[in-house]
C-alpha cells in the first residue's frame, strides 16, 4: 500500500476549492480584511489562527455569505459565490456564539437543516440520532438550549452544522468550551469525519495545539492579513516572521546583527557575549539587524560547558516553570537577556539537577535557531 502525501498546495495541477482573490473587507473606514489572496483545497483541514479581532470570523462570514467582500472575489469550485445567497450555498457554519434556536429542542435544532432539505422522516431521524451519538448528547435530545451546559450547547451547534454533511464546513471556535479530554476526542472525531466524508474544513481556533493537531495547513493572521499559511510543522519550525514565531509556541527572540560566516551567519547580540551561529536559506547583508528565534525545547541545559556545540552561553537560573511532564527554565545571561530552555522531567521533582540561582550552560546546534529579518 502506498501512502500518497496529501499536499495539494504543492501540486501545480490541483484546483483549489476556495479561492480568495484580492479580497478586502471594510466596515466603514475600518479594514477588517486587507487584500488577501488564498487558496484552500478540497479535503483540507484549514485552521485560522490569530489574536482576537484579526479578522478570522470575517473570513468565515464571507465564505458563508453573510458579508460580501468590499473588493476582490471569492470562488468556490471556480465559481464566483457573490451572487449566491447563504441558503443556497453548500456551506454550513458553526457560529462562534452557537446561535442555537432557543424555542426548539436539541433534537429539533439538529434536524432543522435536514428538514429544509425535504429529507424523508426516517432518514432525518437516523441522521439526527447519529449526530447525537457522535457528540454524546443522546440524553439531552429533548432539552431546550437553555437547559443544557455551555459545553453541551457547543456540541449541539457542532452537531447541527455537521448534520447536513456539506461540502465545506466552517467551524468558528468549535471546541473552546469543552474540557481537555472531550476536546481531544472531538478533535479526532472531526478528523475521522473528514476522512470519511471528504468534507473540507475551515476552522478558527485560539488553541495552537488544536491547530497543530487537526490542521493540514495553518494560517496565522494579524490585523486582517494572513502572515503565513503553511503546514503546522513548517509554521513551527520555519516561521516566516518574528510575529509568527512568537505567536505559535514558546520562543526566545534574540535581537542582533548578522555577519556572513561559513555556511551561515554569526550574530552579535550583546557586549561581552560570544557571537551566536545559525544556518539559514535566507540572505542577510553584513551588519544587517536580525532576530534569532529559538524554541526552548531545542536548548540544552548543562552544568559544564558542552564541547561539541558552537552556541554555548552561561547564565543564572531566574525562574523554573514546572508543567508536570516538562520544566521550562528561564536563564538570565550577564547582559540581562533571558533565554528559555526546556527539559523533559524524566526524574522525580526531588531529584532535579538544577535549582534557582544555579549557574548553568545553555547550548544549541547550528540549525536549531531560526534567523529572521527585522
Amino acid at each position, binding site marked *: 500500500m502506498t501512502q500518497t502525501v496529501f499536499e495539494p498546495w504543492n501540486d501545480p495541477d490541483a484546483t483549489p476549492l476556495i479561492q480568495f482573490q484580492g479580497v478586502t473587507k471594510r466596515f466603514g473606514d475600518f479594514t477588517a480584511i486587507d487584500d488577501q489572496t488564498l487558496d484552500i483545497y478540497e479535503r483540507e483541514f484549514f485552521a485560522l489562527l490569530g489574536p482576537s479581532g484579526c479578522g478570522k470570523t470575517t473570513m468565515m462570514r464571507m465564505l*458563508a*455569505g*453573510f458579508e460580501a467582500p468590499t473588493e476582490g472575489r471569492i470562488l468556490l469550485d471556480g465559481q464566483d459565490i457573490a451572487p449566491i*445567497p*447563504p*441558503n443556497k450555498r453548500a*456551506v*454550513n*457554519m458553526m*457560529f462562534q*456564539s452557537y*446561535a*442555537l*434556536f*432557543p*424555542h426548539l429542542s436539541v433534537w429539533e435544532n439538529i434536524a*432543522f*437543516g435536514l428538514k*429544509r*432539505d425535504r429529507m424523508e422522516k426516517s432518514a432525518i431521524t437516523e441522521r439526527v440520532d447519529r449526530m447525537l451519538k457522535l457528540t454524546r448528547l443522546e*440524553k439531552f435530545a429533548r*432539552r*431546550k438550549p*437553555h*437547559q*443544557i*451546559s455551555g459545553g*453541551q450547547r457547543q456540541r449541539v451547534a457542532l452537531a*447541527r*452544522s455537521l448534520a*447536513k454533511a456539506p461540502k465545506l464546513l466552517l467551524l468558528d471556535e468549535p471546541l473552546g468550551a469543552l474540557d481537555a479530554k472531550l476536546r481531544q476526542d472531538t478533535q479526532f472525531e472531526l478528523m475521522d469525519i473528514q476522512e470519511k466524508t471528504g468534507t473540507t474544513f475551515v476552522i478558527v481556533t485560539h488553541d495552537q495545539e488544536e491547530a497543530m493537531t487537526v490542521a493540514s495547513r495553518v494560517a496565522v493572521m494579524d490585523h486582517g492579513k494572513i502572515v503565513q499559511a503553511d503546514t503546522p510543522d513548517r509554521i513551527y519550525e520555519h516561521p516566516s516572521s518574528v510575529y509568527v514565531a512568537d505567536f505559535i509556541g514558546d520562543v526566545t527572540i534574540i535581537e542582533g546583527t548578522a555577519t556572513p560566516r561559513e555556511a551561515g551567519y554569526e550574530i552579535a547580540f550583546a557586549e561581552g557575549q560570544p557571537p551566536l551561529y545559525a544556518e539559514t536559506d535566507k540572505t542577510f547583508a553584513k551588519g544587517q539587524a536580525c532576530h534569532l528565534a529559538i524554541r526552548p525545547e531545542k536548548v540544552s541545559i548543562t552544568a559544564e560547558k558542552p564541547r561539541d556545540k558552537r552556541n554555548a552561553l552561561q547564565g543564572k537560573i531566574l525562574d523554573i516553570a514546572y508543567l508536570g511532564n516538562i520544566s521550562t527554565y528561564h536563564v538570565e545571561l550577564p547582559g540581562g537577556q533571558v533565554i528559555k530552555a526546556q527539559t523533559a522531567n524524566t526524574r522525580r521533582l526531588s531529584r532535579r539537577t538544577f535549582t534557582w540561582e544555579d549557574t548553568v550552560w545553555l547550548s544549541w546546534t547550528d540549525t536549531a535557531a531560526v534567523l529572521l529579518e527585522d
Partner: protein
Amino acid sequence: MRRVTWFNTTSLTLGFTFLYLPMLILIVYSFNRSELVTVWAGFSTKWYGELIRNEAFLDAAWVTLQVAVVSSTVATVLGTMAALTMVRAGRFWGRTLFSGMIYAPLVMPEVITGLSLLLLFIGIGLDRGVFTIILAHTTFSMCYVSVVVSSRLATFDRSLEEAAFDLGCSPGEAFRLVTLPIIAPAVISGWLLAFTLSLDDLVIASFTAGPSATTLPIKIWSSIRLGVSPEINALSTILIAIVATGVVTASLITKRASLRLQAEERAAEQQA
C-alpha cells in the same frame, strides 16, 4: 424579614380602598332593585335582564368587539412589520425622523388624532361607520405594537436568522420558523395592548363613528349624560368581570410557564 406594622397595614388598606372602592360601589349598585342609583332598595338582578333586552347596547357591544378584533389584528401585522424594518434597516438617511414619526402618535393628543382623521374621512368622502373606526384604531394602536415589538427585537440575536439561512431557509421560512416564534410573546402582548386600547377608546371613536355605528364607550358616555342608570352599572360590572378574567388568566399562564421553566432547569441541573 416580614414586619406587619401599624403603618404598613394602614397604607395598604388606604391604597386598596382608593383603588377599588369606586368599583366595588358600582358593582354593589348594579344589583340594586331601585331605579335610583344612589338609593339601596334590596338585591335584584333585573338590570342585567334589562341589559340583554336593550338592542342599542347589544349593537354597540357587537361593533366594539368587531372593531377591537379587526383593528388590533391589522395593527399587530403592520406594527410588527414597521418594527422589523426599523430595527433591521440599520443606519440610513433620515432614520431618526422615521422612527420619531412612528412614535409620534403615542404622544399626540387623542383629540388631534381624532380630528385629523375625521377631516381626512370627510375629505375623501368616506362614510363614517364601523370601517372608519377600524381604520382610526388601527392607525393609533399600530404605534403601540411597534414600540412593544421593537423593544423585543432590539435584543433579538441576528445570528439566529443567519443560522436559519445557513441551514437552508429562505427569508420567509427564516421569519416563520425562527424569528416569529421567538418574538411571539411580544407580538401577542402588542395585540392585547391594541385590543384593550381599542376597547376603551372614547375620543377617537367619537370623531370617527357615524350614525350607523356606535361603540360601547360612546354609548355609555352618551347615556350617562342623561343620568346614570342602574343598567350602566350592570354593563360596567360585566366589563370589569371580563377584564379581570383576562388579566387573571394571562398572569396564571405566565406564572405556569415560568414555574415549568424553573422545574425544567432544576431537572437539567440534576441530570447534568
